């Protein structure tokens, strides 16, 4: 039987990680992620979790420690946010290019400056091209479930890549809500132990890992890495399906659609804003407007085909980013969706930026946004970026 709990996003992440039984955890506390590590340390101290916890002096060391453990065949876990992720970047990149599967939770936080500690997706978005898989979730249940699923995706022999499970700082990390905690035996059945074949620490079968590698061979590594990341799209869908069959909760895999089939207007969202956007879709549906929602769950690899299938033939689409893409005057997800839709010239595609640095994304923002799309769908192509301002206002920047 599952246990129902009222719990914060950070606690849900810690419980999810503990259920996956990592052998080694190394982490350094940073707002808003700190209580993930505190919880895990507590579980180990109480004897509830049999993991080796390494208390390091920085995030660079945290990732380096789990990397060493992963090379020797261990299942590992860590979590971080913003400046911690930035400090971790060098071993972070190496983790994926060494093809070492692991799960790292990111409680998303804005990047300074100006000085800030509040929620955003700018931190994880900034490292989207470091070879990891990256998935964004919308509530605390999905945090817990995806950390468990994350190991199954990452450790799949066709994938063998590390994965980030990303949830908005404060809006989820500190949100308390109802979460079902599955029993350990069921998680054990779903997620068997990690048994790596490609790297082994065995003195009787010595192997060299990561020697200096000339470009023509390095290119083969990269080609394989890209193929594996692409393969992960199928694996993410399969694991979601298996998880649903075992635990009764299906998330749709790489994307989740909400009332898209007959929709003229679609909001594209990522993370904790999604639930609020669903409410706005419900309200507008009651007023007879054919609105829908596409939640992007996998940012890396990007689900190009699915995004095309869902958005093809729609009149107007707003892509809402809790991050900016410097150099494009839009958010990053917008650029990704636009690239995916490169053959769909007839969709009015509207970039929207909101919720930076912990700013609130409200119901009014989304209902106003749907109203704007309703007008926009009369025109072909819409180039202005919309900013969600305080009080639910929309502000257009050309």
């Amino acid at each position, binding site marked *: 039987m599952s246990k129902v709990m*009222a719990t914060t996003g950070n606690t849900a992440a810690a419980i999810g990680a503990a259920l996956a039984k990592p052998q080694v955890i190394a982490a350094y506390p940073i707002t808003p992620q700190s209580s993930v590590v505190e919880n895990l340390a507590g579980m180990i101290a109480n004897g509830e979790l049999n993991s080796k916890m390494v208390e390091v002096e920085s995030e660079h060391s945290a990732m380096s420690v789990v990397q060493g453990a992963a090379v020797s065949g261990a299942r590992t876990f860590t979590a971080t946010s913003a400046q911690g992720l930035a400090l971790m970047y060098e071993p972070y990149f190496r983790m994926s290019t060494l093809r070492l599967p692991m799960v790292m939770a990111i409680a998303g936080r804005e990047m300074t400056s100006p000085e800030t500690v509040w929620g955003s997706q700018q931190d994880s978005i900034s490292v989207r091209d470091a070879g990891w898989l990256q998935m964004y979730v919308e*509530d605390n249940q999905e945090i817990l479930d995806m950390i468990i699923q994350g190991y199954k995706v990452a450790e799949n022999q066709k994938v063998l890549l590390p994965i980030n499970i990303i949830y908005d700082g*404060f*809006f*989820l990390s500190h*949100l308390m*809500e*109802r979460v079902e905690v599955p029993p350990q035996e069921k998680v054990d059945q779903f997620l068997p132990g990690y048994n790596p074949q490609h790297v082994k620490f065995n003195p009787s079968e010595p192997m060299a890992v990561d020697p200096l590698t000339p470009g023509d061979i390095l290119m083969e590594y990269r080609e394989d890495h890209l193929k594996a990341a692409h393969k992960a799209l199928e694996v993410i869908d399969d694991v979601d399906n298996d998880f649903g069959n075992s635990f009764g909760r299906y998330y749709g895999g790489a994307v989740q659609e909400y009332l898209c089939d007959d929709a003229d207007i679609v909001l594209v969202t990522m993370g904790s804003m999604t*639930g609020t956007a669903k409410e706005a879709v419900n309200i507008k549906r009651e007023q007879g407007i054919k609105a829908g929602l596409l939640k992007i769950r996998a940012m890396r690899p990007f689900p190009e085909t699915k995004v095309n299938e869902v958005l093809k033939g729609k009149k107007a689409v707003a892509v809402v980013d809790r991050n900016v893409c410097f150099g494009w005057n839009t958010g990053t997800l917008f650029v990704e969706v636009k690239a995916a839709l490169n053959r769909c010239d007839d969709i009015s595609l509207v970039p929207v930026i909101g919720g930076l640095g912990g700013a*609130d994304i409200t119901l009014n923002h989304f209902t106003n946004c749907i109203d704007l799309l309703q007008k926009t769908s009369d025109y072909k192509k819409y180039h202005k970026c919309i900013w969600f301002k305080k009080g639910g206002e929309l502000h257009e920047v050309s």
Partner: protein
Amino acid sequence: MKEIRFHGRGGQGVVKSAQILVKSVIETGEYAHFIPFFGVERKGSPVYGFARIDSQSIDIKSQVYEPDCLVIMDDSLLDQIDVFEGLRNNSYVVINSRKSVEELNLPESAQNIGMKIGIIDATETALNVIGKGIPNTTMLGAFVSVTSWVDKSTVENNILKQFGEENARAAQKAYEEVKIYEC
């Protein structure tokens, strides 16, 4: 869905009391959530939090702008910020104050809106019963009395579990002694 906005000052235990409320609602089979808003992290600075209660799962993850209930842990906030902003008609207010409803000098926006206001000197009650002037668990007793939105014994159990007997007694005292007015 019922929406609640908490106002308090850093150190008054806004987060802990709201979490006990959410826990209690979830234990009785309904849905609830709470999002704290952290400003500057120091004692005494104004803090906020946003809770929702519903019979079905709650998708929305934003702050509360049109509350059905306000929980105000410190009446000195009334002079500093518009705590009543967006308050709905036929709503509830639970306030920690030693003043009478007249002395509170409520703004025009909070008058003639069918508001039920419960006033309790929770800091004094907590000082007397618990020995600490932290009003959060005491305020929960007043909240249950004013709104009846959550099962009293479940809240009591959770206060007992998390804080102990004295806090539960202070909450009970506030439950009995909160003065309720209709405005």
